[in-house]
């Protein structure tokens, strides 16, 4: 800006701050009114920064595993004793499972049941999380290049982590089940009662729309119900851990803040997820897609 006179430069300096403050405020309001407006910008920036975040998060993951190793070393004795008892118990379960599996196969052949959908997995590393108290998402280092798509489920060996909401070429964002915007159709395994698991940014999401408050009790297993066709039925989610005034809360099986790697699973169901459409009530000027189709025909 050296070609400008000092007065002009001073004038620009003076007006820049208020202009940018107003611009930021406008962006906040616009971004809220039309959530899709900045979506492509978001994926572009995420894609561009993903390699840097990837490089930064590697040593952190390594440090985390060093701490884990030390902890394991300290607890070896108790852990061994615990595992031996658990192993004895699991061996009994294995027998039971084998019997049941044989039974199941026989019964399935009687029913001519269709085999379950084949699934494909992509393993991804968590490269960033949402710093702050108001969103619960993580970024992973897999994107469209790895054939990851919006709506797919993110899981670990323990259970459901969340689902993919934004997918760039190299990175994707996972909306955790604890996020304020997360709603997942679930079933209480014992009672077969359906409910919706709603995140509220706390560590323990709530169960909504239960037919009666005593339909669940503490310790009940909660799994996905498969309703809505986004997740397959039966994915473990968590256990009912508390029942307070706001309804039951569940403790997710996955320790969400500790997830380093996760699996993105394509159950072949994500195609049923509708593409994002702007909120119709707020953007009534826009035509509904069906009207659009009719108009172009």
């Amino acid at each position, binding site marked *: 800006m050296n070609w400008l006179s000092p007065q002009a430069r001073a004038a620009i300096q003076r007006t820049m*701050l208020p202009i940018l403050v107003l611009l*930021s405020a406008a*962006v906040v309001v616009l971004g809220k009114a039309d959530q899709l407006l900045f979506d492509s*910008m*978001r994926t572009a920036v995420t894609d561009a920064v993903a390699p840097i975040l990837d490089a930064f998060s590697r040593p*952190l993951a390594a440090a985390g595993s060093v701490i884990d190793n030390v902890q394991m070393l300290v607890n070896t004795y108790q852990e061994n004793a615990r595992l031996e008892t658990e192993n004895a118990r699991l061996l009994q379960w294995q027998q039971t499972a084998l019997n049941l599996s044989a039974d199941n196969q026989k019964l399935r052949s009687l029913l001519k049941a269709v085999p379950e959908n084949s699934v494909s997995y992509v393993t991804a590393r968590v490269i960033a999380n*949402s710093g*702050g*108290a108001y969103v619960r998402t993580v970024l992973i280092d897999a994107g469209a290049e790895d054939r990851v798509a919006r709506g797919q489920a993110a899981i670990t060996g323990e259970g459901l982590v969340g689902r993919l909401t934004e997918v760039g070429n190299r990175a994707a964002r996972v909306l955790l089940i604890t996020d304020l915007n997360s709603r997942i159709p679930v079933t209480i395994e014992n009672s077969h009662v359906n409910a919706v698991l709603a995140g509220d940014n706390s560590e323990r999401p709530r169960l909504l729309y239960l037919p009666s408050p005593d339909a669940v009790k503490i310790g009940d297993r909660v799994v996905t119900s498969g309703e809505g066709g986004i997740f397959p039925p039966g994915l473990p989610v968590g256990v009912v851990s508390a029942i307070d005034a706001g309804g039951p809360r569940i403790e997710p099986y996955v320790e969400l803040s500790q997830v380093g790697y996760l699996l993105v699973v394509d159950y072949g169901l994500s195609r049923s997820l509708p593409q994002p459409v702007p909120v119709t009530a707020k953007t009534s000027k826009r035509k509904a897609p069906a009207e659009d189709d009719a108009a172009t025909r």
Partner: protein
Amino acid sequence: MALKVFSIPALPRVNNSAGRILPVATTLFAALISVLPIHIPGYAALTPVFTLMAAYHWTIYRPDLLPPLALFAIGLTEDLLAGSPIGINALLLLLSRSAVLGYRRYFVNRTFPFVWTGFTLLTVVALFGLWAVHCILDLGLFDFRNTVIRAALTIAIFPLASFLLGRAQRAVMGTG
């Protein structure tokens, strides 16, 4: 909203380019480390506001080298990466700059406790404001405890951040 504009006093010229980009680079770095996944239970919600520390430090010592446009870009980048409502961190950083510039002369060449007290006030106001804005945007009340703990962590870590930034400033710019 007081948007009074305070002219930036003439500061000693920094002749090396590393020195000139240091404020922007460190603030951008702060934005990146605030989204890094640190595997501590509950950490994500309580992540200290690293960008606020850098913005405060540089607004006091070198406001000329961390211009509003850079703050806007860095705030926006942080929003896009963290998945938070877009523009909100940009707004936070710019308003903080505006507030700090007004009182800058009370902080320059003062002892650290003075600077820290100023940062404490700024953090309390900024994080309460952030909480209020999020409540309005989501039409609900967020748990206020997270905000309190986050503010406490941010204030507690500031001396370390300030020390490191000051060290970098002296090493690269030769002033500070």
